[in-house]
């Protein structure tokens, strides 16, 4: 019997579990020293990472369809959170049920790999059908605002997020076992790294403020260095998790760096508009999930299409 190296994505998940165990133990030990609010946030973040790692294992060890369903539930909760925070018209309750119905349908296309319907169902069919259902109610006051709110919610929390599920359904590429899971892992890790890199550089080296009206603390330095770090990480990780050449890896890193940031600031702008205060952020139902998904909602479709156009 020969010893076989585990696939990189398995090894990486093993490392992630080890880190999470340390983090979980650390958080419970230090929970008495820290401020309770911050502490609750840290615990919620750790718990979210357990879910993410669990989702990857589910896809690798059991069945991808389970992970597709799990991502569908993520969309359900995120859309629900969005509608809780956003203004909706009482008259539209039936319309909202139809909008919710789009979630299982979209994830059915994603899980079964029906590319055509997957990519046009929400942007075209749902986009055109919801106003029809809405006009049947006969209430014109606030119509445009209501239809816009629902469509923004569906596009970001359902359509964009469902690209993560479609990626799982991608067939294997030559030389890369479990291609879909590996590519998804690469995307999620880089997007999270990008958030962290932006945050750390802003805090330590931020001088020239940018977009201060959206969120104080953002800086040109953070934007450039954060994106640069993400590009470096993209090149470093590419050989293990992707079929990319170094040029493709740089492009992917640039895309994730820039659009992760755009997703972050755009979601922040939406939250400000809806009056979501920062102290409520980490609570599920009060913006907690949208806050976690913000950058991923923007990077997922772009990274997916980059991969899809280059390799499939």
């Amino acid at each position, binding site marked *: 019997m020969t010893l076989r190296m585990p696939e990189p994505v398995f090894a990486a998940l093993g490392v992630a579990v080890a880190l999470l165990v340390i983090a979980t133990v650390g958080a419970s030990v230090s929970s008495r020293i820290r401020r309770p609010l911050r502490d609750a946030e840290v615990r919620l973040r750790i718990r979210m990472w357990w879910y993410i790692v669990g989702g990857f294992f589910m896809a690798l060890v059991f069945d991808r369809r389970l992970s597709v369903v799990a991502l569908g539930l993520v969309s359900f909760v995120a859309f629900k959170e969005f509608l809780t925070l956003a203004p909706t*018209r009482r008259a539209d309750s039936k319309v909202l049920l139809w909008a919710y119905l789009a979630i299982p349908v979209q994830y059915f296309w994603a899980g079964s790999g029906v590319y055509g319907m997957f990519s046009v169902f929400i942007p075209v069919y749902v986009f055109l059908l919801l106003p029809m259902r809405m006009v049947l109610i006969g209430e014109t006051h606030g119509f445009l605002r209501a239809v816009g709110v629902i469509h923004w919610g569906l596009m970001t929390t359902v359509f964009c997020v469902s690209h993560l599920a479609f990626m799982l359904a991608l067939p294997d590429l030559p030389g890369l076992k479990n291609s879909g899971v590996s590519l998804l892992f690469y995307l999620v890790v880089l997007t999270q790294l990008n958030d962290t890199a932006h945050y750390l550089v802003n805090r330590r080296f931020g001088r020239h403020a940018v977009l201060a009206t959206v969120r104080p603390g953002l800086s040109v330095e953070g934007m450039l260095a954060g994106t640069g770090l993400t590009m470096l990480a993209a090149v470093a990780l590419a050989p293990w998790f992707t079929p990319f050449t170094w040029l493709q890896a740089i492009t992917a890193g640039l895309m994730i760096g820039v659009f992760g940031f755009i997703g972050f600031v755009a979601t922040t702008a939406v939250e400000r508009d809806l009056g979501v205060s920062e102290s409520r952020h980490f609570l599920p139902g009060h913006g907690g999930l949208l806050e976690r998904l913000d950058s991923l909602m923007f990077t997922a479709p772009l990274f997916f299409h980059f991969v899809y156009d280059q390799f499939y």
Partner: protein
Amino acid sequence: MNKLLRILFVLLVAKPIIVFWLGLTVRHRERLPTRGPAIIAGNHNSHLDTVALLSLFPLEEVPNVRPVAAADYFMKPGFMQWFSLNVVGIIPVARRGVAEGIDPLEECYRALERGEILLIFPEGSRGEPEQMAELKSGISYLAKRFPTVPVIPVFMRGLGKSMGKGTFIPIPFFVDVFVGRPFSWTGEKNSFMDRLRDAFAHLQKKVPAQPLE
């Protein structure tokens, strides 16, 4: 009243709807009584209010929790009556009982004597979604007769938005529940009702508003 049916209702209907379909954030759950007698006073916007309050209790406690409900609405003979009595476990109150010379709260007195937990909606009816109506004073008669029984105000936000008057399918929205501090009979009807009104006003401010156009 059927204990098993009531537990199954909370386990298979109330908890799944409230926890998974809607999503619940409860502040100060520890203020809820673990045993009766007690009076829970909730704001009322939806049939889901009763469902949500029931779902807050541990299953073994459920048969002991009794929603107080209007007899003229829930006691129309037929399925509604059977369901209300046996599955939800309501105590029917004849809103016009006084005119007919009977104390409409008689059943509530018996329940508190048995050590049960009453769920009562002092606004009386569901009214406009997400708005509080003037409180009715029926609850003060209960508190006066049982001056040591704790009254726990509970404010719920989002249920009227999810399933207001006239709609019957709950639409998924997150729901906030804030349990207030227990208090008891103040010795006088007006001051008791003021105390309850203040409690609701205070809780209302604590629970983040949800936009509704």
